[in-house]
């Protein structure tokens, strides 16, 4: 029997690392100045990595969609869906954690800030991708059509993630990580959190790919 997801060692690493990050985020570092509620600064360790990984998921969907169209390899299609689903899941998490932070920092959970608008639009784009997949019954056609849609959707995705929030005035802080706007201890915990979430992402992603491959085998058997 093949190992599904991560090996036992990596699972333990992932769990311990995530536990360490959570402990460090709430105990290891103090509250940060410059926030309406200094304690709320800790959301950074969860909200930002999740949002970054959501973009990684969507880019992964594009990557595997291109791969599918080149080789027509069903494995690429399974990875494209898995990536899009991971992106969607992490995007939902980013939306929710963002709304939580918005309530503390800006006084309202939802106020149509450009970042909030663009993240909802992003969810819509990929919800449309899943809808398209459910509307095509034949596996090969479904894979090809949804691959084209995923590639076409990349342009609005990049616009919503990288351009819109920078063109329109936003309350959302930008480029804090790159411009060095964090104190050194926050930096350490932040990158540790990024690592932990990446590991978690890989774990769920590989489980999802395994499920997709099992489904394909089951589908082929039922056809016989």
């Amino acid at each position, binding site marked *: 029997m093949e190992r599904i997801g991560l090996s036992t060692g990596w699972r333990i690493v992932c769990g311990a690392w995530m536990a360490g990050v959570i402990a460090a985020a709430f105990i290891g570092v103090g509250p940060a100045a410059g926030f309406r509620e200094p304690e709320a600064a800790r959301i950074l360790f969860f909200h930002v990595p999740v949002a970054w990984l959501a973009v990684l998921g969507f880019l992964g969907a594009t990557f595997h969609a291109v791969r599918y*169209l080149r080789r027509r390899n069903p494995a690429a299609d399974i990875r494209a869906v898995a990536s899009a689903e991971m992106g969607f899941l992490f995007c939902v998490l980013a939306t929710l954690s963002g709304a939580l932070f918005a309530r503390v920092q800006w006084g309202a959970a939802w106020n149509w800030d450009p970042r909030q608008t663009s993240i909802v*639009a992003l969810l*819509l*784009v990929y*919800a*449309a991708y899943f*809808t*398209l997949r459910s*509307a*095509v*019954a034949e596996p*090969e*056609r479904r894979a*090809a*059509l949804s*691959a*084209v*849609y995923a*590639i*076409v*959707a990349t*342009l*609005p995705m990049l*616009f*919503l993630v990288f*351009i*819109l929030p920078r*063109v329109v005035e936003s309350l959302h802080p930008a480029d804090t990580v790159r411009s060095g706007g964090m104190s050194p201890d926050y930096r350490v915990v932040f990158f540790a959190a990024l690592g932990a979430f990446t590991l978690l992402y890989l774990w769920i992603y590989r489980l999802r790919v395994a499920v997709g491959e099992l489904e394909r085998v089951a589908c082929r058997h039922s056809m016989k």
Partner: protein
Amino acid sequence: MAEAGAVFLKDLQQELRNRYALNAMALFAITTLVVVGFAVGSQALPASVVAALLWVVLLFTAVASLSRVFLREEETGTALALRLAVEPEHVYLGKLLFNVVLLGAMALVVAPLFLAVMQARVGNPGLLALVLLLGCIGLAAASTIVAAIIARAAARGALFGGLAFPLLLPVLIAATGGTTRALEGAPLGAAWAELRLLLSFGVVMITASLLLFEHVWNE
């Protein structure tokens, strides 16, 4: 290019013969105009609201018929003949051109009518025309490839709006911003960011569609 022109002319002739898209568009446009006009009444609205409403009207009108270009081929069973006769790129370009012309013609009628109904003052008509043109190209570019996709799927009618709207958001956001500037009478330079965005969206979308169309068309 001659082949693309031939596909365009064929669609145009077909359209002028039964006027399905034109009739549906006109009906949609007038219905939406009446609804918006009724809801607004005789209030004077700020430029940003008028701009947003204008693009909502244009979007609804566009959705009524932009998906027809490929659906018609599937319904009449002529897709196969077209596939044999013309290279995929030319089919795409012809259909895109048809949609741009259709949408442009519609905008030419709907936008002045809408602005008259809203009693809006246009500060910079040249800029407005430019934003409308680039916006229509952007709308048509994204709609054409989505139309090609849904023509090959089930539950087509309902799918088109659902698939096209999220992709069109960047166009709508930029076009609404540009239209607001135009209504306020800002000079061309003030809407530079929006114009650049609309242009680049159109160019990238058309390029991507050209590369990808074959995979949809021959699937």
